[in-house]
């Protein structure tokens, strides 16, 4: 039990834990001090000054996010003077911000807009010089718009502290300060991994995904193409939030129905290809174990991680599985196996992937993934984009009659479902690898040790007397820490799962913005999304990828067997080192 001290908030006495900041103490006792640059997962910046409070005996206001409490401290959070100063601070931020809320993509879910409303800003008192910068639209995934930036620094801290990618910093000074990559280079040419976490934490629209909703709507009205959609596991667990549902509702059936109502001719579930990924990946793993291949083998599903690999870990490229991601496998199978079965010219198939991810937009464009010159996925849209499309088309998403995905490449096992959360790919792979290796069915298939939000998780398995050590990391920062261990001790693990985003795909860069009463990447929200997927898995009769009858049929009719020549043509690829080279600092105290 930590030491308790007495403080006074707005004349009321409270016992609070020593060592907390004023903001943390106030939060515990029901006072939500207005804030902007603060985020509990990031270091304290103290940049915005919105969270100021009065402390008796202090000459100036204190930034409550940074100021520690002390015995007998008397704090006021809402005096008339404070309200006035806070409103001025927010007004000054607004003064150097475009007045284009009604045409802004974040209209309705912008933190600055909410804050202005909370401050009661009804008239504008300041009018001065405004900054104007060009948008950086070079990246397939992440658009940077410095004109909308309020310099809270959350994106820089997310990119540096949580992801340890350090692509962004604040360059220049004073009025001319701009958040940018090194040398003000285009995002496309930088070390950006396209993870999109800057978008998630940005309170305004300074970072956005490259929006393809216009293109998709246009194609949906094109009578000359066959419109095919697929959607990722974690989209179903999060999209409800964009329609004001509590996190963790499974909206799979509603999403399938809505995609059909939007005009898609066929709707497939990416989870089918997650099952196929498991067939290929576990076979590849066992092949490496039995034939002295490169170990540890590292998963390759996460697009942000794959871009990170090429720039930060060229030395580990051979450790990474050659499997394409489930999205790209689904795309390739759609335009080969399925099109052939249906008697459709694959060139006439317009394939859209609905993903929790911004990096998947970049992945879909990778030349390494072309098969016979064809892209498997023509456009990728995020959970946020599809939610907007559904609203824009006037579809009653919440009350719609749920529907099932199309077959034969739409049905999945429980193993395919849990791909959407950290630890899920590993758990799914083990369910199949165990049986392929031992010939026996794994009974206890829920691996609690690799579930949850711990940064690096480990487990040891017994495959018929062979000890297999596995590790799981989510978020590129944790991945960096884990790979640091691997570089120093290459024999420590046999199999590693890496997902680029905090919590895995459930915390993807394309997921719905934080709800008004929440914060970006709130752990409780991530856990509820993950639990939604685990719950779907538990309720499935078929919970192992190799038991999926459609997967068995696919191998019988088309692929022959895992790692076959045909599998390699459609489902595998190779990556190579790229510049600029990423640098991971030993510590962040520079």
């Amino acid at each position, binding site marked *: 039990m930590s030491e308790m001290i007495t403080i006074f908030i707005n004349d009321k006495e409270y016992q609070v834990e020593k060592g907390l900041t004023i903001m943390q103490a106030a939060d515990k006792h029901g006072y939500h001090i207005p804030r902007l640059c603060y985020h509990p997962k990031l270091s304290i910046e103290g940049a915005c000054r919105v969270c100021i409070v009065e402390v008796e005996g202090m000459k100036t206001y204190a930034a409550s996010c940074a100021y520690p409490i002390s015995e007998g401290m008397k704090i006021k959070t809402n005096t008339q003077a404070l309200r006035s100063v806070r409103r001025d601070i927010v007004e000054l931020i607004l003064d150097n911000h475009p007045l284009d809320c009604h045409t802004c993509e974040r209209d309705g879910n912008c933190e600055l807009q909410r804050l202005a409303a909370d401050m009661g800003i009804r008239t504008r008192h300041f009018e001065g010089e405004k900054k104007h910068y060009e948008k950086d639209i070079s990246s397939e995934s992440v658009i940077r718009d410095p004109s909308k930036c309020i310099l809270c620094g959350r994106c820089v801290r997310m990119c540096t502290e949580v992801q340890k990618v350090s692509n962004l910093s604040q360059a220049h000074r004073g009025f001319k300060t701009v958040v940018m990559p*090194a040398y003000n280079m285009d995002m496309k040419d930088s*070390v950006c991994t396209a993870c999109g976490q800057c978008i998630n934490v940005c309170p305004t629209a300074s970072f956005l995904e490259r929006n393809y909703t216009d293109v998709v709507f246009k194609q949906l009205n094109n009578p000359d193409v066959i419109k095919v959609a697929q959607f990722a596991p974690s989209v179903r667990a999060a999209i409800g939030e964009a329609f004001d549902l509590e996190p963790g509702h499974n909206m799979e059936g509603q999403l399938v129905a809505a995609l059909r109502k939007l005009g898609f001719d066929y709707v497939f579930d990416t989870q089918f290809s997650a099952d196929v990924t498991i067939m290929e990946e576990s076979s590849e793993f066992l092949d490496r174990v039995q034939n002295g291949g490169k170990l540890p083998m590292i998963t390759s599903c996460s697009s942000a991680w794959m871009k990170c690999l090429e720039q930060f870990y060229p030395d580990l490229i051979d450790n990474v599985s050659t499997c394409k991601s489930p999205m790209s496998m689904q795309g390739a199978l759609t335009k080969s196996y399925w099109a052939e079965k249906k008697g459709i010219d694959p060139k006439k198939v317009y394939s859209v992937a609905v993903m929790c991810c911004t990096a998947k937009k970049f992945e879909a464009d990778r030349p390494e993934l072309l098969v016979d010159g064809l892209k498997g996925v023509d456009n990728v849209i995020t959970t946020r984009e599809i939610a907007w499309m559904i609203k824009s088309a006037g579809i009653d998403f919440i009350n719609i009659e749920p529907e099932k995905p199309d077959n034969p490449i739409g049905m999945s096992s429980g193993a395919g479902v849990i791909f959407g959360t950290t630890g899920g790919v590993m758990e799914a792979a083990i369910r199949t690898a165990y049986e392929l290796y031992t010939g026996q069915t794994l009974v206890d298939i829920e691996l609690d040790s690799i579930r949850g939000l711990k940064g690096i998780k480990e487990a040891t398995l017994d495959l018929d007397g062979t000890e297999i050590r596995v590790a799981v990391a989510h978020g590129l920062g944790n991945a960096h820490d884990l790979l640091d261990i691997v570089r120093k001790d290459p024999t420590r693990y046999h199999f590693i799962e890496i997902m680029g985003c905090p919590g895995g795909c459930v915390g993807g860069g394309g997921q719905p913005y934080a709800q008004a009463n929440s914060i970006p990447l709130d752990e409780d929200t991530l856990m509820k999304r993950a639990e939604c997927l685990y719950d779907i898995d538990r309720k499935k009769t078929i919970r192992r990828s190799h038991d999926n009858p459609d997967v068995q049929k696919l191998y019988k009719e088309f692929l022959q067997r895992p790692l076959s020549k045909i599998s390699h043509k459609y489902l595998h690829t190779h990556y190579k080192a790229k510049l600029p080279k990423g640098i991971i600092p030993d510590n962040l105290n520079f």
Partner: protein
Amino acid sequence: MIDVKDKNIIEIKKYIEETKGMEHSESYLIAVLHKVQGLFGYLDREIMDIVAEDMNIPTAHIWGVATFYHYFNLEPIGKHVVSVCMGTACYVKGGDKVLNALETELGVDVGETTEDGLFTLQEARCLGACGIAPVIMIDDKIYGDLDSKKAVDVINQYRKVAK
């Protein structure tokens, strides 16, 4: 035969190596950037990449530091740096007119370098020579009691020497 650039890079790498044994070695970034500018005249991107890799500091962070301090030049500078004093004394004695004349004569704005690479024009804030205001400084030499014509004459002397 090792060229000047390679020699300078070796010197910078050696200096970074020296800083590594020191306490808070990562805080030597500014010192290292000074060294780079001292040797190259400006912060070349290729050299900043080397600094990033050798000091293990992300390039974006180095860029943040390099752009924060006005002292650091991010573009190559001319053979001679012309600093026009815009301190109070020089200003009231016509420093702004001297600056305008030099901008016209050299065909560049403040912060820019002439096409022939001979001059970089800069503003300065009080060079401590108020008694002979308005003054300009070329490299480390002061020229005082100037007007527009005299300032252009000084420039022409440098041009003559360069020919």
